[in-house]
């Protein structure tokens, strides 16, 4: 166990952060709200090797793992980048890796940045839980006919293709019977409605209007995709937590700096003890969140249930902390914090969106409780 960056990790953290400082600002983020995946930026990100930085060499990457993904996601969160790193390079890639078989062949084009992909695993009634699958895929000829609807496909508005979960057998919440399909953006019968999240990242809903695909569209084993999706989403959630950590860290220090300069009632705001204590509470939340992220990264290496427990714990703690820090950052700024021109409100919205993605705080507390049972309240056992 080692809590310090290796030399490579430090260099990665440094270069991603510098890249974001140089290339991403609030204005570009606003301007690009409509097409978040700026092709030039995305090309650069891929060329720098970051899309494969979170994968080992056997996995098709450059010798890293979840720690490296977290480093990148944190830097992107810190700079409010809207590039689809988490959706394409973590959520989707990790789902593909866990699917085994031919799925690996898709990874190369994603890691190279040639293609982007989005994981369409949620439905409105699932409320962020991908194990709720009511979209259906019926055998038709040698292939399948898909019908149903997927919601909040992160990065889906600009993805070249989608990984869509649909039920080939079983009931809505059965573990067995879920199959993953690769569907191209322009596939006939795939209807898309693009929208923005509150923080200007793009998402979409998909309607599968009796869409027909061949058997080669199946990713991994038919009927057996649940475990792979769960694993991919757990990795994705850990990356989202890292993204939140970057955002809350930055929101906190922006606020600190503001308090030190802004005057009211003839004093700088930083001299008011009530505000100092609020900031201290924010810092406690931040540090506990960072610790929790590390626990989640440790849990990713454990068996499925322990992994999901650790990830849900992190999603809940960091979700709650992020909303608290974001709200207090606005409050401590006063009116300026509510304006679109100023950064701090955008951090709040990023944190709000992250807290809700793939299940609310309460939903993850509930999942944690369901998985923990008589287990000790520790990741170490």
């Amino acid at each position, binding site marked *: 166990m080692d809590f310090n960056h290796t030399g490579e990790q430090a260099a990665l953290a440094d270069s991603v952060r510098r890249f974001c400082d140089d290339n991403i600002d609030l204005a570009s983020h606003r301007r690009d709200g*409509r097409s978040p995946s700026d092709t030039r930026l995305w090309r650069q990100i891929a060329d720098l090797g970051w899309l494969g930085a979170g994968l080992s060499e056997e996995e098709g990457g450059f010798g890293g793992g979840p720690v490296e993904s977290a480093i990148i996601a944190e830097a992107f969160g810190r700079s409010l980048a809207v590039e689809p790193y988490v959706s394409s390079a973590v959520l989707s890639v990790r789902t593909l890796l866990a699917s085994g078989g031919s799925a690996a062949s898709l990874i190369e084009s994603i890691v190279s940045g040639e293609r982007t992909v989005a994981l369409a695993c949620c439905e409105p009634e699932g409320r962020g839980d991908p194990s709720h699958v009511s979209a259906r895929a019926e055998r038709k000829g040698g292939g399948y006919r898909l019908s149903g609807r997927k919601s909040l496909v992160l990065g889906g508005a600009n993805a070249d293709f989608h990984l869509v979960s649909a039920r080939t057998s079983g009931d809505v919440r059965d573990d067995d019977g879920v199959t993953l399909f690769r569907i191209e953006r322009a596939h006939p019968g795939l209807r898309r409605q693009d*929208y923005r999240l509150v923080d200007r990242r793009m998402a979409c809903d998909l309607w599968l209007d009796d869409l027909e695909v061949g058997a080669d569209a199946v990713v991994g084993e038919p009927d057996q995709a649940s475990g792979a999706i769960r694993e991919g989403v757990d990795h994705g959630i850990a990356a989202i937590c890292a993204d939140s950590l970057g955002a809350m860290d930055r929101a906190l220090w922006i606020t600190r700096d503001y308090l030190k300069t802004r005057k*009211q*009632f003839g004093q700088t705001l930083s001299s*008011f003890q009530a505000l100092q204590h609020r900031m201290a509470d924010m810092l406690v939340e931040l540090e506990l969140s960072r610790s929790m992220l590390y626990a989640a990264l440790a849990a990713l290496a454990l068996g499925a249930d322990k992994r999901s427990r650790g990830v849900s714990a992190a999603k809940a703690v960091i979700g709650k902390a992020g909303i608290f820090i974001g709200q207090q950052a606005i409050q401590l700024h006063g*009116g300026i914090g*509510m304006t*679109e021109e100023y950064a701090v409100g955008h951090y709040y*919205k990023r944190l709000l969106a992250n807290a809700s993605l793939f299940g609310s705080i309460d939903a993850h507390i509930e999942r944690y409780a369901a998985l923990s049972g008589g287990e000790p309240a520790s990741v170490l056992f």
Partner: protein
Amino acid sequence: MDFTIDPAIHDFRRMVRSFIQENLPEEMRRRGERDFDSKESDVRGWMRILNARGWATPNWPEACGGVNWSPLQKFVFQQELRRARAPVLDRVGTDLIGPVLCEFGTDAQRARFLPRIQNGEDWWGQGFSEPDAGSDLASLKTRADLVGDAYVVNGQKIWTTCAQYAQWIFALVRTDFSAKPQKGISFLLIDATSPGVTRRPIESIDGGFTLNEVFFDNVEVPIENLVGEAGKGWDYAKFLLTHERTSSAEAPHTQRDIEQLKLLASNAIKGGRPLLEDPVFRSKVAALEIDVIALEWAVLRILHADPDDPSLNSVASILKMRGNVQRQIVAELAAEALGDYGIAMFLDPDDPDVRAEDHLAPPLEGEAVGVSARAIFRRATSIYGGAAEVQRNIIAKQILGL
């Protein structure tokens, strides 16, 4: 003490309810469901309708056009307006400047301005805050120099709600730089269309444009538009802020929001059941409901108290603080009830300031449409009108003597 609720109040409620049902245009009601700020033309239109019935400003003194209702009736009237999703009246006119003019205005000012407020003809903007004077009004810098029989105003105001629609702005301005900070301030009524007035809407993080900057560049204001005495603006401002002591609690508004929340949570499905039946979510909704009942009765206490009791001024801080928190929570729970769509952005299709290319909406309709934007904008409630921290200072000092 006697807390018996007079059954006649139920008849009153029915009367108000049926008036609204019969007179509120369906279009307005539908827009009212969506949680965006009421459309300007709807507010003006609805005020006209209420005014025709004599109900535009029931809280004003009767001599100024108020209604002889009991405190409980006035509260129930507000509840019914909110429940019916009627357009939210121009509070700056009805709750802020109106009472000030009733109390301190000249007969000429009252005759000129009050009827136009009641009839929705004049909208008002409040020019208190400045870029360097947010909660700390005593340090404001906008100046008004008396030249002949007019003040010449120079300076900048900020966070002026709906200034873009206003015909008039009332502002605190510094008329005497030699006096102590709070003594040299006067209270002016400024024609928003005067030469030298520039209004710039500020986009807020919910994508709306209700807030404004207002710039005054050698704006001439006739001396008859001074309220009361020069140098006493601070007193009038305090009167104004405490006069809204119960309305800032917004209890009827939160009660209406809870009804909507329960509707959304009944329609949302979680694990095959309505979300409202999920024990944890239901418990959060009920805890909020309960808290709102406590606030409702805090408001009733104040409404029944002697309005001249000075101790009530600081009680306004209590109502405002708790009311703000409740409004934030109810909006956040509504967003949570929407699940995936609680973090999807939907901008107000009726807001003329929203850029057309920004309208990119998730698949939502009806009640759910404005929910996420509202949840975000509500963060402002604990900032505007005196931030929560300032309210705590007031309570600590004025009530607790700390």
